[in-house]
Structure formats: C-alpha cells, structure tokens
C-alpha cells in the first residue's frame, strides 16, 4: 500500500511534436515509480502505434511478454523491448489520444528491473489495440532516467498535447 503518490514531473508536447520524451535526474528518494501517458503519434500506416520505454538511455537487455487484443482478435508474444501497450496514431479519430501506465517497483535496487505496463489506442471506434506487458530490464543499475518513444520510430513523433507524468511512490 502506497503511503504517498507524488507527482515528480510532467511534460506536455508542444506544437513541433517530439521524437522522444525523457525524464532525467530522477530522484532516488522513492520506493517505486509510476508513469502515466496520454499520447498520439503521426504514424500514418495504422490507427495505433506501440509505446516503448527504456531506461538510462540504454536500449539493450530489454525483454517483454505481451498479451494483446485488437478488438477482433487476441494473442500474445515476446519482444526485446519494454512496452506500455499501444497508443493512438494519426489515422484514428481526430483529437483522440491513447493512454497507458507503467509501474516500476524498486527502481533503485541492485536487482534486475521488472515493470508492468498497459496501454490502449483509444479512438472512439469499434476496434482498438490494447496490450498488457510484463517487462524486464536486465540491469542492476538504479534507474535515473526514463525515455518514451514510438515503437514504429522512423520519422514518427509524439503529437502536440501528448502528456507524460511521472509519479514517485513511497511505501510504508
């Protein structure tokens, strides 16, 4: 049970968009971290886009186990990234944003860092991609920075008004 749930920082993407969103110099004074995201990208090939996360600027030693649904089918899979499910892409209903959350316990410990994420490409339409991810970053380093990016990077960017808020949790 959390004794405090404190907003550390929040970012809202401006009119130019952003390829990635990063939180740096994260204080080590909390027990766990929770990141909440509302996002939309300009990925034009679909109505959804994957939302990936990595730590301390490193994109290696990442794995995830995923359960996903598309609105008409479901499945599971693995990947060598960490994910927060899906978010909305540019061909989805105008002015809709996907939303997701990831919980990162014991982010300063010397054990490998597990996290659980979920995200859905909300679009006020019949179909929506959604996923739950069990992530692992196989590193003993304390997490000091977090970066979010589109899974389908290329030239894709987070669109204006996408937001990300990082919270620190203290346990009893």
């Amino acid at each position, binding site marked *: 049970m959390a004794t405090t749930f404190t907003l550390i920082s929040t970012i809202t993407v*401006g009119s*130019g968009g*952003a390829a*990635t969103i990063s*939180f740096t*110099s994260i204080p080590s004074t909390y027990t766990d971290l929770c990141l909440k995201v509302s996002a939309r990208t300009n990925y034009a090939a679909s109505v959804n886009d994957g939302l*990936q996360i990595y730590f301390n600027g490193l994109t290696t030693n990442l794995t995830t186990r995923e359960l996903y649904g*598309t609105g008409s*089918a479901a499945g599971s899979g693995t990947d060598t990234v960490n994910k927060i499910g899906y978010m909305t892409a540019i061909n989805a209903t105008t002015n809709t944003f996907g939303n997701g959350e990831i919980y990162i316990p014991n982010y300063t410990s010397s054990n490998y860092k597990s996290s659980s994420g979920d995200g859905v490409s909300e679009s006020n339409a019949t179909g929506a991609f959604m996923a739950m991810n069990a992530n692992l970053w196989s590193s003993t380093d304390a997490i000091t920075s977090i970066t979010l990016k589109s899974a389908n*990077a290329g030239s894709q960017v987070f669109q204006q008004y996408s937001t990300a808020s990082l919270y620190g949790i203290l346990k009893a």
Partner: protein
Amino acid sequence: METRIEINCTTGKITEHELTQAELDQRETDRVAYEMEQANKEAEQAAKAAARAELLARLGITEEEAELLK
C-alpha cells in the same frame, strides 16, 4: 528537424534537442523492427482464421453454429 523533449526532474527544466545522426539511424532500425513485428502478428492472426475456417468446413458447420458450441 526532429527534436526530443527532456525534463530534468530535479530542476524542473524542460529542454528540446535536435536528434543526432546516431539517434536518427536507431529510429530507422526501430521502424523496420516494428513493421516486422506487426506483420508477424497479422500473419499469425490470418493463419488462425484460416485454420478455423478449414476446421469448420471439415465439420460442416457455420461460424454461427460454432459459436453455439462455446
């Protein structure tokens, strides 16, 4: 020019940086990997649907009748 946005959680300062060539190259690599992953998912779903259709045909029942068996 593509940029990345960064907030320093200690100072609260928000900065925007232009992507380096290495970052642009990594993004292209990620794009290719993601498209492959999506293609694999779609192929897996298509294979499941085809297998289901084949089974229903062998059983001689419709999709609606198969739903009644659930």
